[in-house]
């Protein structure tokens, strides 16, 4: 049986037997699939696996994980300690590479980029917010925020505009010439957030961004992140331990023993709260 016959046979139960219609249908389906892929899932993990091998022991915190994250969403990633949250976040942030599986970010398979290409990709696409801020102690708040812009081809004037805007957004523009040691933890984290958003990255990742802050500062930081997600439309992926923080997120993922459990929307909360 020829391919033509196969196509005809398969479509024999449809009202139309016109061959062009069949091809059109196939083309449209393919197009839709791609469009869906383009619009719906910006981050697409397929069979994502990360193993760490040290000496004779092998640890596999992520084992064949499938996950789609849409552009513009705010995802909270929860789970017990050692469940692989940071591992997943680091893979998405492109500072680590998967052992196997694919990690598509837009049209790019990040897992297959070379070290230098990955560095370039990070500088354009990722803003990373650390639990311990990781500001450079010898640089002022302003200079810390300016740092990622130095990787771009920008004039000093353009850089200034962007840094000023970012500092204003996080509400710390009056402390721009202070060094990190002169700032409170919450203020340091604001500067770190400004540093993460100043390059207008598509994705902002945060690993327990409020883990080192008191409740009031934590709430401020979280609403700031929410604001960045809503007003700037940035995709935000945040690792958190605190179930209360998840109310800011649009989607909550629970990672445990390499298994991913989805909890619906912002009204949902972690299983620990509603047993």
């Amino acid at each position, binding site marked *: 049986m020829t391919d033509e016959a196969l196509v005809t046979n398969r479509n024999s139960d449809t009202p139309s037997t016109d061959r062009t219609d069949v091809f059109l249908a196939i083309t449209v389906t393919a197009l839709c699939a791609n469009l869906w892929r383009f619009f719906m899932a910006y981050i697409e993990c397929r069979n994502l696996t990360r193993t760490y091998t040290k000496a004779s022991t092998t640890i596999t915190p992520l084992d064949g994980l499938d996950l789609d994250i849409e552009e513009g969403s705010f995802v909270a990633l929860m789970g017990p300690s050692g469940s692989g949250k940071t591992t997943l976040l680091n893979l998405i942030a492109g*500072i*680590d590479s998967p052992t196997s599986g694919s990690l598509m970010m837009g049209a790019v398979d990040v897992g297959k980029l070379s070290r230098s290409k990955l*560095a370039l990709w*990070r500088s354009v696409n990722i803003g990373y917010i650390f639990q311990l801020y990781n500001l*450079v102690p010898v640089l002022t708040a302003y200079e810390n925020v300016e740092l990622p812009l130095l990787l771009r081809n920008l004039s000093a004037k353009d850089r200034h505009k962007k840094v000023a805007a970012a500092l204003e957004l996080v509400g710390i523009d009056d402390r721009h010439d202070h060094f990190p040691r002169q700032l409170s933890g919450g203020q340091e984290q604001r500067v770190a957030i400004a*540093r993460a958003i100043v390059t207008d990255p598509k994705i902002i990742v945060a690993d327990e961004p409020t883990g080192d802050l008191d409740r009031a500062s934590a709430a401020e930081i979280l609403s700031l992140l929410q604001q960045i997600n809503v007003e700037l439309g940035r995709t935000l992926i945040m690792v958190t331990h605190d179930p209360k923080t998840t109310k800011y997120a649009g989607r909550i993922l629970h990672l445990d023993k390499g298994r991913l459990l989805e909890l619906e929307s912002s009204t949902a909360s972690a299983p620990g709260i509603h047993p």
Partner: protein
Amino acid sequence: MRLLPFDYAVRNLGRSRTRLVLTIMASALVVLLVLTAAAFVRGMANSLVNKSAGNNVILMAAGSEESLERSQIPGSTAGIVAASLPGIKNRFGVTYVSPEIHAAIIVKDDKEGSRSWHAVVRGFLPEASLVHPRASVIQGRMPKPGKDEIMVGGLAAEMMGVPDSRVAIGQSLWFDNRRWNVVGRFTARGTVLDCEIWVPLTDLQVATKRETVSCLVVTLDDAEFADVDAFTKQRFDLGLTAISETDYYASIMKFYQPVHAMVWTTAFLIGLTGLFGGLNTMYAAFAARVRELGMLQSLGFPRRAIMISIIQESLLTSATGTLIGSMLGMLLLNGRAVKFSMGVFQLVVDYRVLLLGVAAGLIMGVLGAMPPAWRCLRLPIIEALKAS
């Protein structure tokens, strides 16, 4: 490639004053050592090269195996050479032929010889000042023959191991059971002549009980060395052999090659210690910064950019150390007299020596930063970010 701001490198220096001071001192020490070794070798080489006398030829007795102290030729040979060797420099009817005695003798403090020293003496005639233009009387006058007078070179006291005042004008030394008065001081900067005592030729002949001279020093005008060489072979009856002054000192230099090697090795080994000391503080300094370096990489700064910033930082330190080391070197080393068996020479810190020291300091700055920096940078970013 995008680099980190230079300010970052500069401000990183201020992170630990102790480390800054230590690394600056370590690099200053290494530079100082390199300078010392180079100044030593250069000073020794300088003293053995009679710079002004590129066209001087020494005629000595054939078979004396290039040892001036062993060579004996009749004084009358000087006249024969002056008359029959064409192409010797001549001015106002005086030919540039200087018969000389080179001898190492023991000079005493007084008649009893309660103290005595080894000294290098040169018996000379007035022609000596023609063939050794670098030697000039700087104080007093030339000694007159037959009056037991001598003149003393600028470094002779150093050579004998006495204070310079001991050989000042008006002082006297004893040898051949006679008192010799110092009537003049001369200098021949940068040559072996500077550590000698000059005695009128005939007086030295009497004192050393010889009728011969050691050699003839001849300054050539339009003759070549080959002409002189041919002359000695043609007039083999004179029993002479010719060697250019440059070659003569070069052959002595060769004799000291092992000394140079030893000096360099010592300097190298001590320098290495300084380098490792510096490296150690660098390791500690960068180890404390691993997380920050990981963060910079996570922002997208390539490792090369970070490495360059670290090298800038290290270069700032080592350049400061180099500056200090070089200044110390110029202040402490230049002109310092060093005694060795051939005589006394002065350490020379000239631009070539300085260049070597500066190069060593800067290369050390670059190479010293790389291993500790690399140890931090080769870590995977995720591990670097976990460092405390």
